[in-house]
């Protein structure tokens, strides 16, 4: 059973891959990120019971995603789970937000998950057991975040995309989850809040554990919602 993880070279994606490698639900993990070095570092952190495939790939290369997904299917013979964790932000005030900023943010945070989901669903439809898709949005997608216009609006789009697909894909027995973490100690968060003490906020492994719980074979009641993950 294969699980594809984007953003696996750092932060929440890496922590999820590490946690997933300790669990029995999936025997093959496909790790996607732009940099082969960081993916290789993630691989070193994993328990080595599973088949691990590294794919250095820029997810804004939309035209190549169908081939990427097809290659994964050929190599693994199934795609059971897709975790869209990769994300991008360049926080700016409205008057300094360029169209480029908007475009890149939506490309990584919305268009890439959309194309990946579309291509994976072609194969997931054929699975005997229920398949799972999980998208990492953000609490920024459901509340006002002055200064984070492109990021917050892209995450809102991802929340909506997840909810729509959770119904549209239900007949294929594909469950669509959406999680929205609050502040979590990663490089992306550093960009959003440069002065914050990251030792006192939620850590990536805490989010990773919840993601793994949601896409485990035992969970089948929590899809179709925007699940907030926050350390109180």
């Amino acid at each position, binding site marked *: 059973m294969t699980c594809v993880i984007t953003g696996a070279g750092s932060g929440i994606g890496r922590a999820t891959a590490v946690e997933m490698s300790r669990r029995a639900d999936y025997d093959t993990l496909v790790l996607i990120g732009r940099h082969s070095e960081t993916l290789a570092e993630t691989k070193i952190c994993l328990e080595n019971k599973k088949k691990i495939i590294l794919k250095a790939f820029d997810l804004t290369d939309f035209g190549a995603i169908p081939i990427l997904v097809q290659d994964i299917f050929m190599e693994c013979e199934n795609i059971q789970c897709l975790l869209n964790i990769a994300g991008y932000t360049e926080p700016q005030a409205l008057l300094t937000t360029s169209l480029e900023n908007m475009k890149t943010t939506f490309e990584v945070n919305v268009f890439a998950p959309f194309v990946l989901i579309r291509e994976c669903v072609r194969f997931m439809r054929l699975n005997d057991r229920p398949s799972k898709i999980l998208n990492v949005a953000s609490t920024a997608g459901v509340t006002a975040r002055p200064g984070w216009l492109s990021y917050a609006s892209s995450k809102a789009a991802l929340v909506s995309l997840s909810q729509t697909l959770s119904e549209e894909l239900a*007949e294929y027995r594909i469950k669509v989850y959406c999680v929205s973490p609050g502040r979590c100690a990663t490089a992306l968060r550093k960009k959003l809040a440069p002065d914050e003490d990251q030792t006192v906020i939620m850590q990536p492994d805490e989010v990773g554990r919840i993601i793994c719980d949601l896409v485990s074979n035992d969970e089948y009641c929590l899809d179709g919602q925007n699940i907030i993950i926050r350390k109180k």
Partner: protein
Amino acid sequence: MEYSAIILAGGAGTRMKQASPKQFLLLAGKPMFMHTLERLEKISSIKEIILVSVPQYRELLAANIDAYMLQKKYLIVDGGESRQQSVLNGILAASQDNVIIHEAARPFVTTDEFQALIDEPCEDAIYGADIPFTVLLKKNGFISNILERSELLNVQLPQKFGRQPILDVHQRAAAEGKRFTEDASMLYYYTGREIKILPGSHCNIKVTEPIDLILGEFIYKEYIIGRD
């Protein structure tokens, strides 16, 4: 036993007040006809699917078969002047000994229901439901006679027939210029054959009026995917 599935997918859709015919409207995010095709794809004894439609929708049908990566053998044939002629065109194109006749405007038939029709030992079988309301005969705007409700049947699709018997009666009806609203009536009229009635679901509505599409979304959620 192996089957050709004949799917009527070509009415002009004037009653729906929509630009595109109803079979192409999105129901729960998917073109209406695709609900049926995806379920038929899962049934191994269906060897080919014949879509009967008007010529201008050929490309659209083919593009969707492609986009949904459907695997079975598909034939798209032109419909005729009437429903009866369209069915006949479908039967003529069929290569298997048995046919299933269905229409794209009935998207709430599950894979299990198609399978149960196939598994029914009687060669000719249809779905039908009781009529939960009273039906009377009328003439010139007045009631002309009563009918016994318990003896009446709401005839549904899908239906299955041996290809040769249903072809024979269609050709006979065509030669005689005789019209039937559906095929079980025609087969029974000419041959008196035993046609088995399987209990149909009241969710198996035919999407005809605009309100049916709204009701259909509820039926889909409740009956097909079981969501509230």
